[in-house]
C-alpha cells in the first residue's frame, strides 16, 4: 500500500519504519484494547504516508479534521473476530471490489491512495463536484452493502 501511495521505495520504507516505531510506542495501550491491531496499523501507516504527501505540496495541504483522532483513539476499531471473518472471505471480497465500475474505481483509488477530498477529485478529473461526490459515495455504498452480504452482518439501528 505504501509503495503505491508514495513516489519511491525508500520513502515507503521510511514511513513503514516510522509506523512500526509508533506501534511500539503505543503497544501498551493497544494491548488493553478490544480492537483490531491490523486495522489500526493500516490506518496509521496510511495516515503517515498522506502526511508526507501533504507536506510535499506547496503550500502544504491541510490535515483533514479527525485524522489525528483515528490514530490517537481506538474505540472505532472493529473487533479482531470481525477482521478474521473478513480475512477468511478476502478472495471473494477482492472480486467485489473489482466489480466497481471504472469511474467509481478511479475516485476510490484517488480517495484511498492519495487522500483526495471530493473537490480535488472533481478538479483533477474535470467533473462537477456533485458528480465526484456521488461517484465516491455510490462506490462506498456498493462496497458496504456487499461486505454486509458476504460477511452476513447488518449493523443494528441503535
Amino acid at each position, binding site marked *: *500500500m*505504501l*509503495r*503505491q501511495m508514495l513516489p519511491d*521505495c525508500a520513502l*515507503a*520504507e521510511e514511513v*513503514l*519504519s516510522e509506523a*512500526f*516505531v509508533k*506501534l*511500539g*510506542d503505543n503497544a501498551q495501550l493497544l494491548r488493553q484494547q478490544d480492537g*483490531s491491531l*491490523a*486495522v489500526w496499523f*493500516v*490506518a496509521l501507516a*496510511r*495516515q503517515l504516508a*498522506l502526511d508526507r504527501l501533504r507536506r510535499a505540496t506547496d503550500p502544504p495541504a491541510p490535515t*483533514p*479534521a*479527525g485524522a489525528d*483522532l*483515528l490514530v490517537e483513539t481506538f*474505540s*472505532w*476499531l*472493529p*473487533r479482531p473476530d*470481525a*477482521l478474521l471473518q*473478513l480475512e477468511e472471505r*478476502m478472495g471473494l*471480497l*477482492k472480486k467485489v*471490489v473489482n466489480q466497481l465500475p471504472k469511474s467509481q474505481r478511479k475516485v*476510490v483509488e484517488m*480517495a*484511498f*491512495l492519495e*487522500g*483526495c*477530498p*471530493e473537490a480535488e477529485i472533481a478538479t483533477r478529473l474535470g467533473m462537477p463536484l456533485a458528480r465526484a461526490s456521488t461517484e*465516491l*459515495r455510490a462506490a*462506498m*455504498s456498493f*462496497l*458496504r452493502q456487499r*461486505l*454486509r452480504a458476504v460477511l452476513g*452482518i447488518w*449493523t*443494528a*439501528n*441503535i
Partner: protein
Amino acid sequence: MDCQHLDESYELFLLGTLPAREAVEVSEHVERGCSYCLEHLREAALTVYLLSQTVRPARLDPKLKSQVLRQVGKK
C-alpha cells in the same frame, strides 16, 4: 442520538475525504462516545481495510525488518 444522516459519511471520514463540516461532526460524536457512530465506524473500517488489501503488494528490502527492529528496540 439521531445520527442516521451520517450513514453515508463513515467510510469517507476514515479516508479523510469527508468535507470539513461533516468530519468535525463525526469527530465530535466519536469523542462523545456515540454508540451509533462508533458501531458504524467499526463497520466502515472493515471496508477501508478491504481497500488496503486490494492494492498490489510490493517487495520490501530484506534488510528493512532488522532495521525496524533495531529502531523499535532503541525506544
